[in-house]
C-alpha cells in the first residue's frame, strides 16, 4: 500500500489502516477466512440468531442479550451463551451472527484496545473503537456479524451498531439480531433520554424478553451488562424475570 518498506523484512512499513495489527490482516480473506468462510456458513455452523439490546443513559449504558445458540435455525445448540463481553475498561461488544466469527472479532478488538492503551497511556475512545470495528467488519474475514458496541468515555455514553458491511451507526439505543423487530417494538415510545440506569436496565431486559417469547432464534434467559465510569458489570440469568426483580 505505501512506498515505505521495512529494510529488514521488506514488509510495508506503514501498514494497512483497515486491518488488525496482530493477524495477517485480510490477506487470507479470499481463502480460509473469506470465500471459504461463506461455505462454512452452513447448517453445521453455530449461529446466535439472537436479540441484543443497547441503551444509553446519562450515567452509563445497559446492554442485554438472550442466551440461545442455534444450528440451522431449527435446533438449540446451547442454552447459556454469554453474548456480551468486555473489550475495553468501560466498553462491551455483543456477539451476533456466526459464533466463531463473533468470538474472533471480540478477541481482535480486545487486543487492539489493549495495544492502544499501552501505547498511548490512555484507553481508546469508544468512537475510535467503533471506527476500528467498522474497518474490520468491512474488509475482514469476519463474516455474518452484526454486533453492538457500547461504552462510556470522556465524551459520555455511546451505543453503536456495527453491520456486516462495516456500517457504524451511533444511536441513543439500538437492537441487533433476529429478534430485533420485537425488541424495538418494546423500546419504541418507552425510551426516555433522561431515564435512569435502573429503568434502562428494566427496559432492555423486557425487550429481550419480548423477543424471546416470539423469535425462535432468541431465548433461554438473559445476560445484562452495565457499563459506567467505574467499569463493566456483567451478570447472567436463567430467567429474564430474575434480571428485572434483581434490584
Amino acid at each position: 500500500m505505501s512506498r515505505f518498506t521495512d529494510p529488514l523484512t521488506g514488509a510495508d512499513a506503514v501498514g494497512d489502516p483497515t486491518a488488525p495489527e496482530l493477524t495477517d490482516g485480510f490477506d487470507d480473506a479470499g481463502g480460509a477466512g473469506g470465500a471459504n468462510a461463506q461455505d462454512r456458513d452452513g447448517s453445521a455452523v453455530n449461529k446466535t440468531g439472537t436479540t441484543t439490546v443497547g441503551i444509553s443513559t446519562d450515567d452509563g449504558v445497559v446492554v442485554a442479550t438472550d442466551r440461545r445458540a442455534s444450528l440451522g435455525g431449527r435446533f438449540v445448540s446451547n442454552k447459556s451463551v454469554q453474548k456480551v463481553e468486555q473489550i475495553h475498561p468501560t466498553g462491551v461488544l455483543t456477539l451476533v451472527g456466526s459464533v466463531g466469527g463473533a468470538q474472533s472479532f471480540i478477541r481482535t478488538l480486545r487486543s487492539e484496545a489493549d495495544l492502544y492503551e499501552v501505547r498511548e497511556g490512555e484507553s481508546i475512545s469508544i468512537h475510535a473503537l467503533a471506527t476500528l470495528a467498522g474497518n474490520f467488519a468491512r474488509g475482514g474475514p469476519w463474516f455474518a456479524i452484526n454486533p453492538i458496541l457500547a461504552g462510556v468515555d470522556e465524551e459520555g455514553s455511546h451505543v453503536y451498531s456495527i453491520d456486516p458491511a462495516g456500517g457504524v451507526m451511533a444511536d441513543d439505543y439500538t437492537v441487533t439480531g433476529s429478534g430485533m423487530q420485537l425488541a424495538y417494538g418494546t423500546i419504541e415510545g418507552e425510551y426516555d433520554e433522561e431515564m435512569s440506569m435502573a429503568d434502562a436496565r428494566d427496559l432492555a431486559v423486557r425487550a429481550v424478553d419480548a423477543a424471546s417469547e416470539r423469535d425462535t432464534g432468541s431465548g433461554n434467559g438473559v445476560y445484562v451488562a452495565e457499563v459506567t465510569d467505574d467499569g463493566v458489570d456483567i451478570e447472567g440469568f436463567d430467567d429474564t424475570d430474575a434480571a428485572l426483580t434483581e434490584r
Partner: protein
Amino acid sequence: MQDQNQQAYDRGTSIFSPDGRLYQVEYAREAIKRGTASVGVRTADGVVLAADRQVRSPLVEEQSIEKLHRVDDHIAVASAGHVADARQLVDFAREQAQVNKLRYDEPIGVESLAKEVTDYIQRYTQSGGVRPFGVALAIGGVDPDGTPKLFETDPSGTPYEWKATAIGGNREALQGFLEDEYRAEMDLDSGVALALETIAQGEEEVDPEAAEVTVIDTETHRVRSLDPDEIASHLDELDVGGDVDE
C-alpha cells in the same frame, strides 16, 4: 586517521564496534551538524518551529529551500541535515498521520507520531545494505486534548521530548542560549521571539525572507506559517533583523 580495526566496523550500520558503538549512526550525526540549525520552542499556548535557510546564491528561489514541513493539521516538523532524507521521513510521517485517522477517526498524538517516525529510523540502524537517515527532526504539535508537545528524533531512532531545543549545526551553543532564556510561562508570541533570537545567535543578522517560522497554537490546533512581514516585525523588536525586500 582511522586504524585498520575501526575501518572494518564503520562499514556496516548493523555492526557494533568492539567498544559498543555504531559508527554509521555517529557519522550520521556529523552529517546533521553540517546543516543550518532549526529551533523548536514549546509554550503554554502552542509550539513554535523556526529555521534559517542557507541561501548559497542570490539566484536560488528562497522558498524552494524547505526546512519546515506541515505533517497534518495539528503537527509540523523542522529538519536539520540532509534535506532529501528529511523529505522521506516527512512523507512517512504524513502517511502515518492519515493512517491514524483512517484507523481510529481521530488525529494522531504528537508523541505517537514521533515514535512511529523514530521506530522507522531505528530500522535503518539494524538492517544490512542501508545507511541511517542523516537528518534530525523537531516534531511539534498540539495533541487532540490540547496539550502542546515537542519531540526530537535522531539517527539512532531515539525519541526525545523537549521544552525547547535546537537541532543541526552549532547546536550546543544554541541549546545553551535556550537553557538560559527559556521560561515555562511564555506565551506563543514570546516563544516566536525566543526561537528567532536563538536562530540569530551565531549569525550576523537574520533575513526575514530567509527565515521560516511555523506555529501550532492550542486554541485552533492548526499549523500556521508566519509570513515575512510578521517575521520582520519580530526581528525588528529583537533588533537582529535585516530589511524586508519590497
